[in-house]
């Protein structure tokens, strides 16, 4: 049936190439991020890749002190907390990502609505999507 062209594996490779890609249903003219192989509106599976804008604004965030193993291995944790958040892109799609360019010691100063710009973090474990607060 499906040829499995829209997968997380491919998405991940695209992140490594510095591209944030969504899947797009030509029938509905709707894009989906994270990319999904089937359109939830028309149930069609003829999805195409489409590059996303790299600018957006911060919609929600947290500063994580008690970190999961993967982030501890990346150098974070109780003594080096980090910010994760949800970004709304210029086209309205939202995505989870690490948030950089903020003072994690003063979380009360981090502003929802701040302008952000995509960056692609290259770690030993692979490429990770992040957004930097730019204002």
């Amino acid at each position, binding site marked *: 049936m499906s040829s499995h062209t829209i997968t*997380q594996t491919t998405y991940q490779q695209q992140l490594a190439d510095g591209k944030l890609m969504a899947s797009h249903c030509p029938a509905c003219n709707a894009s989906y991020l*994270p990319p999904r192989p089937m359109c939830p509106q028309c149930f069609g599976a003829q999805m195409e890749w489409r590059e996303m804008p790299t600018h957006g604004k911060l*919609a*929600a*965030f*947290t*500063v*994580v*002190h*008690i*970190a*999961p*193993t*993967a*982030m*501890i291995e990346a150098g*974070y944790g109780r003594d080096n*907390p*980090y910010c*994760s*958040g*949800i970004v709304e892109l210029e086209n309205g799609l*939202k*995505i*989870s*990502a*690490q948030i950089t360019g903020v003072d994690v010691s003063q*979380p*009360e100063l*981090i502003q*929802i*609505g701040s302008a952000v710009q995509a960056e692609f973090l290259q770690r030993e474990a692979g490429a*990770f*999507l992040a957004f930097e607060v730019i204002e």
Partner: protein
Amino acid sequence: MSKKKLSRGVALVGAGMSKFGAFPGLATRDLFVEAFQEMLTTIDKGIDPKDIEALYIGNYSSDLFEHQGHTAPIMADWTGLAPRPATRIEDACASSGVALRQGIIAIASGLYDIVLVGGIEKMSDLPTAEVTDTLATASDMLYEIPAGFTFPGFYAAMGTAYMHQYGATPESFMHVGIKNHNNGTLNEKAQFGATIRKIMDGKIAKAEAKGYPVPDWADEVEFLQDNRANPIIAWPMRLFDCSPISDGAAALLLVSEEIATQFTDTPLYIIGSGQASDVALHDREVLTSIKAARLAGQEAYEMAGVTPADIQGAEAHDCFTIAEIIATEDLGFFAPG
């Protein structure tokens, strides 16, 4: 969708619970036997446990917490109920709630008249980082976890969105924790069984006894604002905003309406039930409300023919303080904000 209706009525006639806490050396099955034994004592007119026809066991992740899968038949065996059909339900934090719903559905289907519903979790054997990892498997490992989110982190993010939208502060959340710890003192099975005030006074007394500098917290809120007394887990969620790592079990006995009075003169009839699922947080239209909770509440209210105003008592999910705030709004007890 038309109004949903069960083919026949279902009643709750027994309930038991283990003590909740961190119990090294005890396995899930030990806690479930404790809950089952207590449940048997709560059935006014008694029951021959051999009459129980099936088990529905809610459990989130015995796989990762205890490296034990195929969990339901072990619970059946350990409560003497093998070879009854034993089904495990996994729906993250809602596992046991959904198990209750499946028990109701199973009786309504006509297949069984007497069903045992269990809820079990044994979390405390793992170190904190691995518990954090395990809880995170309830989110999307492909698209959410790479962002660094933890389970407290998701609710914390809903918390910042809520603060932004409604002007709430971290202190707003602290008051929920203070209230819930007060409630906990009324339940002898609660993990802490102490008010925040008592925990705070205990720390002051300990500092005095040991000759350490005595903290000058004016009240509980100042205590909860102190990074050392109440460390940040995922800002704005601090330690006392988060439900603890707990071991515990619960057991309920459901029977068909027709036979309910054989077990008690005061059965609790199930008049409504609802269930819905939701998507990853970033895919939700609003971040300050949980659509699945709204829909499930609505389904249950419609089935029961009641409105939120008719409800006199509710146990809402309060894994985090912000979760309770949002749940009580989604269930219609309070307006958003």
